[in-house]
């Protein structure tokens, strides 16, 4: 068992001010608002809350929110890694431009993204027209929700992986090649394991972002009950009906579930990072 010690001696002063300031900051910005949700839920009638949370419509929205976020995060983990790899390893004209485009989903108001995606992916849109010929409908289906979440989650993986790949020396790959490893072996056993903690961290952030995303999804999903309603939408709907307790109940379930998932992913990530850390 690791013994936790409160203060690590350091010649540099400033542990207590820094520690107190960050604790205070976290309390004000994160803990107080979040505990308000719990308190609000606790004041309500439990039977009512359980009815809200276990209603088929809400359960379906949980499934969609977690399922679509998970798929989107997986897709982003794969392609985000690829994009980061290309940006780190190759130089090509317009590289800086591409590099700044990555951050656009951060900066763009999510409603704008939602409207743009919907316009492209509806059955008559640029992309939707082609896809609908194959019987694939994106807008107003769970696929559309996933596409929107992929869009908003992309920067997280790219920005998490990029610095790690950049600081991995070429000579490690060269060493693997000189020892007879194929490109695939080199990637699977040498390059990827080094980047894996960062990929996991990016995956976790993209996933969390997907769970909370509202603006871009509500346009492309069509918000059909039992089919394309995401959990945040149901929260807003409850609020509009002045059912604050019901809204917070849906929120508490999401909060607990996402907290658990992030905890597990971060634990995996740091266990991975701890192995052979410098």
């Amino acid at each position, binding site marked *: 068992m690791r013994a936790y010690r409160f203060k690590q001696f350091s010649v540099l002063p400033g542990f207590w001010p820094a520690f107190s300031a960050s604790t205070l900051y976290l309390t004000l910005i994160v803990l107080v608002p979040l505990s308000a949700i719990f308190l609000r839920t606790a004041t309500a009638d439990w039977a009512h809350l359980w009815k809200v949370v276990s209603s088929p419509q809400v359960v379906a929205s949980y499934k969609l929110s977690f399922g679509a976020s998970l798929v989107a995060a997986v897709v982003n983990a794969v392609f985000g890694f690829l994009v980061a790899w290309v940006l780190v390893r190759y130089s090509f004209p317009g590289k800086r431009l591409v590099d700044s485009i990555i951050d656009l989903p951060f900066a763009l108001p999510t409603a704008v993204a939602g409207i743009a995606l919907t316009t492209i992916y509806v059955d008559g849109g640029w992309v939707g027209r082609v896809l609908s010929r194959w019987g694939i409908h994106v807008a107003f289906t769970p696929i559309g929700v996933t596409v929107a979440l992929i869009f908003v989650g992309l920067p997280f993986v790219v920005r998490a992986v990029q610095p790690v790949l950049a600081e991995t020396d070429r000579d490690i790959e060269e*060493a693997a090649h000189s020892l007879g490893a194929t490109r695939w072996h080199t990637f699977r056993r040498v390059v990827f394991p*080094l980047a894996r903690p960062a990929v996991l961290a990016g995956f976790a952030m993209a996933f969390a972002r997907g769970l909370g995303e509202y603006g871009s999804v509500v346009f492309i999903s069509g918000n059909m009950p039992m089919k394309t309603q995401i959990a945040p939408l149901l929260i807003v709907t409850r609020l509009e009906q002045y059912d604050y307790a019901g809204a917070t109940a849906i929120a508490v379930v999401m909060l607990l579930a996402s907290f658990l998932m992030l905890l597990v992913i971060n634990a995996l990530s740091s266990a991975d990072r701890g192995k052979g850390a410098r």
Partner: protein
Amino acid sequence: MSIEARNITKTFGRYAALRDVSLTVNEGELVALLGPSGSGKTTLLRIIAGLETPDAGTGGAVLFDGRNVIDDRVGERRVGFVFQHYALFRNMTVFENIAFGLRVRPRKERLPEEKIRERVRELLELIQLESLAARFPSQLSGGQRQRVALARALAIEPKVLLLDEPFGALDAKVRQGLRTWLRKLHDTVHMTSLLVTHDQDEALEVADRVVVMNQAHIEQVGTPEEVFHHPASEFVMDFMGAVNLFHGRIESGKAVFGPLVLDHAGSAASDGQAARLFVRPYDLDITHRPGGEPGICARVTRVQAAGPHVRVELRAESGEAVVVEMPHAQFRAARVHAGDDVYVSVRDARIFTEDYSI
């Protein structure tokens, strides 16, 4: 296995790293590629390994035992390559690092697990790190890491061993120890080896032959004794250790440097041509009175008696700084002190004249 590099030319953009360089390393030999940074020595090593390719259309070839391997990829050439910064896989233990080359072989060539373990244990014994097999690279010292890197390279039973400044990132004492160890290792396994270094002591001490490189070409190839005692050019003379430089000219078959007149017969140099005299600090003598030998008048500026030799710094009448090194016994006999006016005579020197053939 012998290595031959033939007519290698390599340019990076507009910068020429190698200009038509050819080199042969005989079976079982340990050859050092010696030169300052930017001389092309690492590029040549990487081309031999297959990590770089010579410029297209220049007809460069790399031959292992007479067979051209220029189109073989690095993994197919079966070379053991050791990198300056170790390039260990930091997500793997020492054991797994060494086993890597054995584990990535295609299934039908792969040794059974028990054989792999046996081989790794042998290599751990060779590098004297049996007890650290389960450690990660981050838990090792620099010298230990480089030994692991060497064992990892040897695990694939390479035909040649290529070392790129293997001790460059280590401190002086560890470097000295590993140098001796590497030479011993080479004497036991007798693998054809090529070592890149910018440290002339390392090259002279370890190698059977030394290849001195400068500005994308080879200046001289020879045994350590040859390149040290018979440098083929001013560059080699200068690179092999401290030298004193005097300027003079050729006059009727003799090289004249102020009061010093040295025989320079048998050379093609014509009268009036500029000449430069290179003298090692230990090839100079200091006397208080002009003796039989002609000497340069100089004033002692500083005496440094700590170390295996006494180092005397002087300023010649003509303004040049001169450094003389002598054994302590000789220093005591000469009774030299700072501020003394003395005569400096030359015991042995190399004369280089301007080469107009370039």
